[in-house]
């Protein structure tokens, strides 16, 4: 399964921990995490389901291409890292 981890600032606000998440796409993997932590959704995604302007999601070291539908495919050993952008403070 893919692994997903979060910057310390997110951990501070919403009590999320690194975990494994099953999913063919970044969207699927995040939804699996939201199923366990519903409050996290609004910290990462806006009301349309797109990634918030000042949040960055990395997949295997590169930022994801599809910030609207989060359709980037995730491999079995993919690594997802979610953090705040340097802007937006």
């Amino acid at each position, binding site marked *: 399964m893919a692994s997903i981890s979060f910057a310390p*600032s*997110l951990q501070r*606000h919403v009590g999320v921990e690194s975990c494994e998440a099953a999913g063919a796409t970044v969207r699927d993997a995040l939804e699996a995490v939201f199923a366990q932590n519903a*409050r996290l959704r*609004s*910290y*990462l995604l*806006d*009301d*349309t389901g797109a990634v*918030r302007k*000042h*949040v960055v999601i990395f997949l295997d070291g590169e930022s994801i291409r599809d910030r609207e539908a989060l359709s980037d495919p995730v491999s079995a050993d993919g690594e997802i890292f979610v953090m*705040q*952008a340097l802007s*937006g*403070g």
Partner: protein
Amino acid sequence: MSDRFFVGTRKGLFSFERRSGGWKQAGVSFLGIQVPMLLPDSRDGRLHAAVEHGHFGIKVHRSGDGGGSWDELDAPVYPEKPEDAPEVLDPGRQVPVPWSLEKVWSLEPGGPDQPGRLWCGTIPGGLFRSDDGGDSWELVRRLWDRPERGKWAGGGYDYPGIHSICVDPRDSNCVAVGVSCGGVWRTEDGGETWEQGAHGMAYDFMPADQGGADPDAQDPHRMVQCRSAPDHFWVQHHCAIYRSSDGARSWREIENVQPSGFGFAVAVHPEDPDTAWVVPAKKDEFRYPVDGRFLVNRTRDGGKTWEALTVGLPDPPAYDLVFRHALDLSPDGTRLVMGSTTGSLWVSENQGDSWELVTTHLPPVYCIRIG
């Protein structure tokens, strides 16, 4: 009268209490995070705070102990845009107005006959209603779906927003909201039907026959209603100060206000609709005290004449700006609390005749609520 008020700032929520040595900071919450809007609800004693994370969006928190501890609630969430709903474009930039919360810009309670009723005004222009004290919110589609929303533009932000919500003390179903830039919208049935009310407002830099007086495009910065004479409203508009005496259905410009008719905040005395306060600034894009002289203007005759109140305020030059929600008046009309973009905070116990400086070292002040 409660000897406490709350200050929402760029970097946290601060409470102040009056003690033997004067007003002192009593508590702090959400340090480091923007708090653009607050509501101390006198009906149940609970305090609501909108907390705006620069990265992680807007959250709403509620406290039952005056800010000592908080519960995070679900913020208002825009529903998914139905496929058959028309795409509303920002009139200036021609980009779609998103069905997504950008800012909580006003929070007000319903009437005493509506326990649990709260109203929330937002950017990009939606009005939300709760009937369970903020546990859940619903977008008021009857206003959001008005076709005139296609003429609403952003006023200082990318998209339009509802910054003022006035619930009629005589009838809780009568509500007027101020929209920058979308005029004034009124309902008499709790939000089922709405009418534009900004008739008479106009921009001074655009000809009236080219849209300068179009009510749907107006920019009232802030709107307040007189509690004891609820047909009387005051608006600090982008271009001038306006009054209504017919329930926000039409407006008359208050002319020749010196040193400027521009500003953001306005307050009206709860028992006297002819007494009001504004904080003037050099107009349009400048927005600093005229000639560096920071003052509060007060009228007691409905705007015919104004007194410049300066006792206890800084000598020139001073460049404080008071945002639209950063001036509050106590329910008995005697105490004013005011905060500025330079982090200064003042209290007046005599309707503005004199001011006590409480601090000059807050982060920029966004919102003040006495409660």
